[in-house]
């Protein structure tokens, strides 16, 4: 059994064949020429003397050949070492990364084209991994904040009802209702996180879904939770699209909730489903978004001026929208028309 081949040794062998072997061959040819001359001299009858001289010359040649071989070996070995050195650097960086830091880069400069390409694509991969890891880290931090606050509120709520002197049935009822709202909030955050995690592991599961049916479910859900803000739905009777149903529903819930939060009481939120250019828009007639915040609203952990809502809500909407197509924000709706419209365009054709 042979061990793994060393690139450096292979280069040494190649270098030897390419450089030293021709020189040696030259020596052998020279030696052979001299000995043939010696044979022709021997025909004159003074063969012993010439023969003695002729055997001395090949000895120097052999010595030279050995010297050339040795020097050639060393030169080729050093040269091969230089050629594989970038590989060693890549290996070293890879080993450091095993130790846990994704910030390291090979930053190779001046290597051969092939090795440079390898190092560059390696750096590219590291960059992407590092970005993914940062996002994940951010998600965990956001999630822990998002989960911790309602949990703390639940704990305090529980503590105050338990420490109340003589709680009445009404006190218990109110306490339970507060618990219910907090549990709903926790549930929602966890749902968001699951959609987020799912989307991270595989891009959207895009199958045939009726967008209108999804909208109906979201509207029903909203009516149960927040009847103070009505919803108007416009659009076709059905619209089948190749989309990831649960994710789109989640995103829509977040959009409607967001719209309802900024709507003046009693002013409806409008949902428009469009079949020609497969899209859905959610419009509110609230104060609108300040122009300097239009990009920031999609950042994780961004909270609106009222401070309410989960910071991952719109970040998730954007993620789902981009997995299924694209998203557009219009705010204000027009001159002297305050309000905000979020439109998700679906890139997949009708199912």
């Amino acid at each position, binding site marked *: 059994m042979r061990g793994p081949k060393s690139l450096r040794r292979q280069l040494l062998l190649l270098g030897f064949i390419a450089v030293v072997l021709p020189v040696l061959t030259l020596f052998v040819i020279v030696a052979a020429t001299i000995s043939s001359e010696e044979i022709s001299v021997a025909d004159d009858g003074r063969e012993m003397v010439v023969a003695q001289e002729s055997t001395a010359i090949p000895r120097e040649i052999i010595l030279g050949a050995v010297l050339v071989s040795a020097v050639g070996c060393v030169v080729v070995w050093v040269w091969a070492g230089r050629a594989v050195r970038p590989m060693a650097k890549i290996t070293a960086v890879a080993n450091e990364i095993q130790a846990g830091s994704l910030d390291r880069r090979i930053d190779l400069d001046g290597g051969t084209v092939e090795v440079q390409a390898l190092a560059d694509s390696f750096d590219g991969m590291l960059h992407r991994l590092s970005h993914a890891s940062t996002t994940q880290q951010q998600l965990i931090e956001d999630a822990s*904040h998002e989960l*911790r*606050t*309602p*949990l*703390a*509120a639940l*704990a*305090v*709520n529980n*503590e*105050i009802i338990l*420490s*109340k*002197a003589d709680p009445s049935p009404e006190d218990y009822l109110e306490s339970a209702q*507060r618990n219910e*709202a*907090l549990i709903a*909030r926790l549930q929602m955050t966890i749902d968001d996180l699951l959609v987020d995690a799912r989307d991270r592991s595989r891009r959207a599961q895009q199958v045939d879904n009726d967008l209108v049916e999804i909208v109906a479910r979201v509207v029903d859900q909203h009516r149960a939770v927040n009847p103070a803000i009505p919803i108007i739905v416009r659009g076709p009777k059905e619209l089948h699209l190749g989309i990831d149903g649960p994710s789109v529903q989640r995103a829509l819930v977040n959009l409607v909730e967001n719209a309802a939060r900024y709507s003046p009481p009693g002013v409806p939120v409008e949902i428009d489903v469009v079949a020609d250019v497969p899209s859905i828009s959610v419009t509110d007639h609230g104060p609108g978004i300040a122009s300097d915040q239009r990009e920031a609203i999609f950042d994780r952990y961004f*909270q*609106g*001026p*009222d*401070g*309410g809502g989960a910071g991952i809500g719109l970040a998730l909407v954007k993620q789902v929208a981009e997995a299924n197509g694209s998203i557009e924000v219009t705010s204000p709706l027009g001159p002297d028309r305050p309000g905000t419209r979020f439109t998700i365009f679906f890139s997949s054709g009708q199912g």
Partner: protein
Amino acid sequence: MRVLLVEDDAQLGEVVLLGLRQEHLAVDHATTVAEAIELLLVTKYDIVCLDLGLPDGDGLQLCRQLRTPADEQDVLVTRPDRVLILTARDDVADRVAGLDAGADDYLIKPIKMAELAARIRALSRRSDQPAGPLVIGDLSVDVVAHAASRGGRALDLTGREFAVLRYFALRMGEVISSEELLEHCWDANTDAFSGSVRVILSRLRKKLGDPAVIHTIKGVGYRLGEPQ
């Protein structure tokens, strides 16, 4: 005691507010720096419980403002007696920064109501007051158990009556006007009218019995002290 709770999360704020009201404290709730300043312009609070991460500004900045002398302020806010920082930032450096910004105490989230209530009691206690019940003659006011007794007989007080009695007891010997009572024992949400102070006071006096311990100082206010 009048407390301002500045907490950006509406739901967490609501339950902490309820917990503090259960301690018979008059509490107002602000969710932003702007709301807090609006309330601080009109009311002199005994204690401000301040969250640091607020949507429209830094709580630490507000804390510094609350500790700035009136003649150096841009916006003239009343200076509360005490500031308690309530936050999830738990580095030593954060705590030091908070206390150096003028806070009297620092409580790290998640909070326990029992601890918050105890810290508020500690902050409202004057250095010359005992840790146990406050005693005036044969009257004893227990600020921990929210109970009062006179001559060994327990008094059956409502939350508001207890809040008023506690305010008197914590400022034993001081003359307190009815406006001051209204400001410190009623919060912004309750339907307070100037008459309600007199109504509560007369009920409290009746329950405290004779000889009277709450004395009327004509034209100025009221004072809690030994029977005369």
